[in-house]
């Protein structure tokens, strides 16, 4: 028989599609149900935050970082503040550090709730997991509202500490949440991790080998899912993470299922960290006073935190003026997308959706 010329045709997944997690578009070429090519198209949400930040003072830039990864504003605030503190040589008091850790870990819980819910939705669970995770996420956002006054874009961290001290009600409310959270994770474990259909849909899909993952600069759960033990909280501790006892979950063979169970386990570890931080919450000031128009000395700094999606780095260059000379964000979900083509080509359309869901992208962060 001669070579059959099949009929590939192009399908746009996104920018308006129920499961692209924002205005993100994948142009896939399919042959029947099988994908032969995939191309990412992004930039629909590009706001040029890096350029805007060059004209505002260091403190004024904190709200911008809320709006990059709008699902984990606390972590973004933290990364930026760390970079500026490193640049200006500012020490944060212990209480401020502990509050930062609590907030960052709560934010990780909230963000992973969202990630897991959306991922389960992508595999076709009809809204139930996403509703459950949103229910828990709301409780965390309540805590944020209690502390910072905002639920989504908190703008809570400040250079030198945090904006306000924790309110009196915070600790009992947070402990109440932590008491129920592990049982909720177990519930999710029963609903999804041990669900045969879920396993059948996600296991062996979008496999990334550890070599590929390292070479493509993946980070966070993507890297750990491939079996690479790398967590910046352990590797390069900031805000006193070295005081807390927690483990790094790593996956087995780097498929979508591994990334999912890694995220689920990370939520358990986060609960552990928050409990320890609450127990050992030091007194004293929560913030070092810095001048409003901070003028760090000439130089550059790269600070990174382990955001919910991976290595969230901020590269700030100062020319001695009140505004950063260069402000660059290393967005984890942008770089985690590098391997999307390798993950999707050869699979079916349904697998591509699962692969995209397992990356856990936030388009505000990709496009900035």
């Amino acid at each position, binding site marked *: *028989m001669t*070579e*059959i010329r*099949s*009929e590939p045709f192009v399908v746009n997944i996104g920018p308006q599609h129920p499961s692209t997690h924002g205005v993100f578009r994948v142009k896939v070429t399919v042959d029947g149900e099988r994908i032969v090519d995939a191309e990412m198209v992004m930039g629909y949400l590009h706001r040029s935050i890096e350029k805007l930040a060059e004209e505002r003072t260091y403190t004024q830039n904190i709200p911008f970082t809320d709006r990059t990864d709008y699902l984990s504003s606390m972590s973004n605030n933290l990364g930026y503040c760390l970079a500026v503190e490193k640049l200006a040589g500012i020490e944060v008091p212990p209480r401020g550090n502990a509050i930062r850790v609590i907030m960052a870990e709560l934010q990780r819980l909230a963000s992973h709730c969202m990630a897991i819910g959306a991922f389960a939705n992508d595999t076709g669970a009809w809204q139930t997991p996403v509703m459950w995770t949103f229910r828990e996420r709301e409780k965390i956002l309540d805590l944020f509202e209690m502390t910072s006054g905002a639920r989504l874009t908190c703008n809570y961290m400040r250079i030198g500490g945090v904006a306000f001290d924790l309110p009196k009600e915070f600790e009992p409310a947070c402990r109440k949440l932590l008491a129920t959270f592990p049982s909720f994770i177990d519930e999710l474990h029963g609903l999804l991790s041990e669900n045969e259909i879920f396993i059948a849909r996600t296991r062996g899909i979008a496999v990334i080998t550890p070599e590929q993952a390292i070479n493509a600069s993946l980070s966070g759960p993507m890297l750990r899912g491939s079996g690479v033990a790398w967590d910046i909280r352990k590797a390069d501790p900031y805000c006193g993470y070295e005081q807390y006892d927690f483990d790094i979950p790593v996956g087995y063979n780097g498929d979508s299922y591994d990334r999912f169970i890694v995220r689920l386990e990370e939520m358990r570890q986060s609960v552990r960290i928050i409990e320890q931080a609450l127990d050992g919450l030091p007194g004293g000031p929560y913030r070092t006073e810095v001048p409003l128009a901070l003028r760090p000395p000439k130089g550059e700094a790269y600070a990174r935190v382990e955001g919910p999606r991976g290595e969230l780095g901020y590269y700030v260059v100062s020319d001695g003026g009140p505004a950063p000379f260069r402000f660059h964000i290393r967005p984890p979900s942008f770089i985690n997308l590098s391997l999307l083509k390798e993950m999707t080509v050869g699979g079916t359309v349904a697998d591509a959706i699962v692969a995209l869901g397992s990356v856990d992208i936030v388009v505000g962060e990709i496009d900035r």
Partner: protein
Amino acid sequence: MIEGAGPVAAFWGLSALTLLAAGGVVVSRNLFHAVLFLIVVFLGIAGFFLLLSADFLAMAQVIIYVGAIAVLILFAIVLTPRASRDNAETRMAPVALVAGVAVAGLLIPAILDAEWRTLSSAPALPVSDLGRELLGVWVLPFQLASVLLTAALVGAVVLVRSPREEREEIDEEERR
């Protein structure tokens, strides 16, 4: 002989429906529409079967012709490209028309002319009789038909297998 206002009206209605739909198969330019007309013909024939108190056959007609054959034809149309979805005639159309008219013209006078010995009362033909007949007298042809069906399915699968799938399978075997 079938009598009564209802059945007679049903006959004329069904005849009109079936023949018009068959005409639709001939004239519609879009192959997809032609298949939809063909489905109406199938349903009309099922109606005729009901009228002739062959309940089971009517149901089988709907399940197999409408549920399987017509859907398969639609599927095949979608698999072929848009350009070959027209329903045009070849140059032989006039000859075919002559053939069709000739068949009808020869057979219909013959039918009307013949002396049919018809029944006054209809025989009862329950499904169980059909089953007994199929597995009794006609058991050998029945077996043959099933073998034919199996052979046809296997043949169809072999025919449409693409070289890529074959290559993939060979690769897989080699990997083992």
